[in-house]
């Protein structure tokens, strides 16, 4: 029964909510109870915009078992516009499209599921930005 451990992270994962140090303003994702910069324990929730750029990436061919259904997939270090770097999958992109510096946007996708009868875990992934073409 892995429900509580995913449930308690849901909002942070669905919406990309991290924390902001009330003292020095340092932003963190995932949220931190103690500021890694000034050690203050006062913080507030921070909603990240969900845009950033790829600073490194790899294509996973040999995945942990719970991610097998999703093969092949890319994982990247994404530097958010606001500063923090996070580890996330890149979706809706071919492996050969990826490059360091590529701009990406956050989407909420299915990250993993506990077989056919367990819970489905949703969370953040990033994809190449969808252009706003209008007729």
């Amino acid at each position: 029964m892995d429900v509580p451990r995913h449930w308690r992270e849901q909002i942070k994962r669905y919406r990309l909510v991290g924390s902001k140090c009330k003292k020095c303003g340092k932003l963190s994702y995932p949220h931190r109870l103690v500021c890694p910069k000034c050690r203050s324990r006062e913080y507030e929730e921070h909603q990240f915009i969900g845009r950033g750029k790829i600073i490194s990436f790899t294509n996973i061919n040999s995945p942990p078992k719970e991610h097998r259904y999703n093969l092949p997939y890319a994982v990247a270090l994404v530097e958010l516009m606001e500063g923090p770097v996070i580890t996330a999958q890149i979706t809706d992109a071919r492996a050969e499209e990826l490059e360091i510096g590529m701009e990406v946007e956050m989407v909420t996708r299915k990250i993993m599921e506990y077989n056919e009868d367990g819970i489905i875990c949703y969370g953040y992934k990033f994809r190449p930005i969808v252009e706003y073409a209008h007729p």
Partner: protein
Amino acid sequence: MSDNVSVIGVGLGKVGEHWEKSLRDLAIESIWMAFEDSGIDKVDALYVGNMSSGQFVEQEHLGALIADFAGLGPIPAVKIEAACGSGGAAFIEGYMAVKSGMYDYVLVTGVEKMTDVLPSKTTSILANASDRDYEAFNGVSFVGLNALVMRRYMHEFNVKREELSIFPVISHKNAPFSKHAMYRKEITLEAVINSPIIADPLTLMDCAPICDGAASVILCSEKKAREFTDNPINVSGVGLATDSLGVHDRVHMTTLSAAVEASKKAYKMAGVGPKDIDILEIHDAFSIMSALSLEDMGFAKKGEGTKMALEGQHYIGGDLPINLYGGLKARGHPVGATGVYQIGELVYSLRGDGRVDAERGLAENIGGSGATISACILERGG
């Protein structure tokens, strides 16, 4: 000032896929090899280095299990865990126990039994060394995390993948001599470059193999050690440091700051610097980790970790021989045991195995993607 601490016994079990042996069989075999090597058969305490017995073989509580089955009696025995850095961390605990005067004889055993589960489960278990909720949850494997660091390194320092491919070649060069190694053969640079991509840019041959193994060393004061030998091998400096668990939280993605910190502590304690190190056992679980380790422990400038390797200086006979018993790549990387294998191998080299005449060596053991790193300096007791 308390007495120096010496290593008086080494037992390195054969690394490989031991279908017929259990975790306890492997551990006990190495313990009794170390007893035979040392000339004693009793210790006051046992420290077990192990990463994930609970998940690999569903067995926790290794201290008591191994103490019991090895016939050690009712001694204090605990497991020390720091992912792939468990062995080095356990060794430092054992060192401190002797150094403090608490125990006279201490046994440190590193053991990992990895082959009882399918490879995809192994991948999942190893990923637990990362931030489970914010790295592994998102599908990044342990190999993947190293690939992320490697691509960033290649990008920042304009290094080619093929340049890093030299490290597995160096480790394998020494493997035929290494009786306990998993792969006792040399490999070519082309073989590494052309091996299948596992998580680009990392190839299969950039990665140390999944395997089973156990290694044990026995520690005591130098004074006691001299009752058994005229040439004890002393522990002259140890350092252990940590860094953020997640690669994404590192200030410098391509610096192992725990290696910087740990090696500084070890150098300071030993009163030496990188130039005084004759041989090196580095944590080459992935080729990129070799380059970073050399840089961050002061053997190369940032971005130039491959330079000496490409010049041939890390082979036996070069300025700084590394991984004289095959390293993680050829000896094998039974994760929690690796750090203890490295100590045992340094002892073999310093005792004199006919290949190098080294006074002093350093062993570097990495846990996770660099979140725990230990550095231990051993030298010949005069």
